């Protein structure tokens, strides 16, 4: 097991280097000088510009952060490969560079502020997804072809086909605008933001709509996977064996079918959780949710490349770790792939 984990962690390295390298190169081939981006219309005096270039590691500096000048008194531009190495080196100290905006605030600090919101939203969404998805799929499979099953199948098809942002907007229209008008403002749900000191609602209420929107498509997929898996498992020979032992239909489903059917469902939910932690750009943008997704969107529109690069770097790490956790969790569910056991080697 330990051996397997080490092997997988070592595999992270090339993936990680590849992704960051591509992004780093892209960031630097995009036209536009970062310092001009920062300055905007203003004219910078030469010393400020040199200081800025030094801050963003665009030019060679000495130990004290002072720019090194060549014999003509000009600054020396740091080559791309060297800047990439500096970036990777910085990562080991938790340094993701600085934002081009927000007064050059460190990217790590910005992401640190935003990530808790994203994580909390993802957790709420994944709970909704797991409970509703698994239960709906189970009932669908057990009561196959019933009105419930037809209802679930139609609903999940509709949800899968619906773009998340549009679904989010529909929710805002219904819960936030329509209901507010109909009830004369006595009952409605917040459609923007994440609460805070002067919030109109309790903080928890702000989670309802974004979490539902974020979970919608995945819940539909979870229900469908659960349904098809359970139906498949219920057709297996070992289910007949269990019935022949005298177990009731209910006991057979609970004791013999669910664990087998859950294996692929848990994989899906795990991967999906990884995706949600990567920041739900669409959902967070629609609901003005102060998470990494919204921040990444903002950074892209304002060409704040260090934040884009920083958040993608973090996403790569998060997704890789989650994938590993999902793979390891297999072993606990399915003894056939118990890793590194004496027999499988």
């Amino acid at each position, binding site marked *: 097991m330990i051996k397997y984990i080490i092997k997988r962690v070592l595999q992270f390295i090339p993936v990680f280097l590849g992704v960051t390298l591509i992004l780093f190169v892209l960031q630097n081939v995009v036209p536009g000088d970062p310092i001009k981006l920062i300055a905007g219309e203003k004219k910078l005096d030469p010393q400020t510009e040199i200081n800025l270039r030094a801050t963003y590691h665009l030019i060679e500096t000495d130990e004290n952060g002072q720019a090194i000048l060549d014999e003509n008194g000009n600054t020396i531009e740091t080559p791309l490969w060297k800047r990439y190495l500096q970036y990777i080196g910085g990562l080991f100290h938790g340094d993701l560079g600085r934002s081009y905006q927000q007064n050059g605030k460190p990217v790590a600090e910005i992401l640190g502020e935003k990530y808790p919101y994203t994580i909390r939203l993802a957790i709420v969404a994944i709970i909704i997804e797991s409970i509703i998805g698994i239960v709906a799929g189970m009932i669908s499979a057990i009561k196959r072809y019933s009105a419930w099953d037809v209802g679930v199948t139609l609903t999940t098809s509709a949800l899968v086909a619906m773009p998340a942002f549009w679904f989010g907007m529909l929710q805002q229209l219904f819960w936030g605008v329509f209901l507010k008008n109909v009830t004369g403002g006595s009952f409605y749900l917040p459609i923007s933001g994440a609460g805070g000191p002067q919030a109109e609602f309790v903080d928890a209420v702000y989670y309802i709509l974004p979490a539902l929107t974020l979970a919608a498509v995945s819940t539909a997929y979870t229900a469908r996977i659960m349904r098809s898996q359970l139906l498949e498992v219920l057709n*297996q*020979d*070992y289910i*007949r*064996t*269990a*019935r*022949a*032992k*005298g*177990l*009731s239909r*209910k*006991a*057979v489903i*609970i*004791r*013999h079918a669910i*664990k*087998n059917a859950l*294996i692929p469902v848990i994989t899906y939910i795990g991967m999906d959780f990884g995706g949600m932690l990567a920041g739900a750009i669409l959902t967070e943008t629609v609901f003005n949710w102060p998470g990494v997704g919204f921040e990444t969107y903002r950074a892209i529109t304002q060409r704040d490349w260090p934040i884009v690069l920083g958040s993608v770097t973090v996403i790569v790490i998060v997704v890789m770790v989650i994938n590993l956790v999902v793979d390891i969790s297999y072993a606990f*569910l*399915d*003894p*056939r792939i118990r890793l590194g056991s004496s*027999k499988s080697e």
Partner: protein
Amino acid sequence: MFGIGLKKRAKQDLRDTPIPEGHHLLEVNDLKMYFHTQDGIVKAVNGVSYTLDRGETLGVVGESGSGKSVTSLTIMGLIDMPPGKVEGGDVLYRGKSLINMTEEEMESVRGNDIAMIFQDPMTSLNPVYTIGRQLSEGMRLHKGMGKKEALERSVELLRMVGIPNAEQRVKEYPHEFSGGMRQRVMIAMALACDPDILIADEPTTALDVTIQAQIIELMQEMQQKNGNAIIMITHDLGVVADIADKIMVMYAGSPVEFGTRDEIFYNPIHPYTWGLNRSIPEPAIDEKHPLTPIKGNPPSLVDLPKGCSFAPRCPYATDKCHNEVPPIYTTETGHYAKCHYCNDKDFVAKNAPATSRTKTAPIAEKKGADA
């Protein structure tokens, strides 16, 4: 979660009740199980009758789709209804109808009084639970045993069916067992609650030949020890030749011949049984003793022939065969067959295969071989 459905059942096993006067351990009377499908009504079991007593072994022989498995699944109450429906007949176990039992009553019979072994041991065990857990389950359910007690008994059972190192093996998962070992586990599981009747549905089909004999022997050995009855379903006459007391030959959902082992092997009176006999490979097949398969395929169970269902493939079929359903002809010994001509001693003597004791004229063999 793992205790659900294992609540202790009332301790009134049917097998402790005496068999009423005039009844057998198991009586199947003209059982009919039809499936209502979109293509029509599939008459999977169409009038099966037999009796079985303790210590006896009944062999049920027939081609794929002849209704052998459906008959036993009907006895076990394991057919989904719908699409299945019992259209007639009854199954009496110790004089009590299994067909009319509630699902709950049936659950206490299944695995307890009547147990079943299935064809493919590779897929018949749940891959995510240990052997011990799967073995314990039935005992915890029917005997109200505790976890520990059931596990100890599981080790004993594994040892009994000849699995070495049972204490260790009981903690292992199905994928760590070979096919033969898994079938031993299935047998142990079926015998766990000491059943009256053991139904084995082609228990050796998925195993290689050397293991087959071991499994059959094991079942016989267990039968001698426990005195249970066995229903052995197979398409292999060789398997039942060794162990069956009685044999029922099935074709297209109904029994075509029923008798003792000797009657079926040495005095068969139905042309289909003759065909099966001629299809048994002999160690030396040469021109004098050719292997003669039965030509053609079984009829569709949705659309059975008007007369005898074997008529289209029967080399001796007459117009009468094609137009009239044959009656059941029973001899004094209880040996019966469903054929218009099995009553005709000359016809039987002339056409029965060489292995038959009734065989008199060697010329007739050639005719039979042409079939």
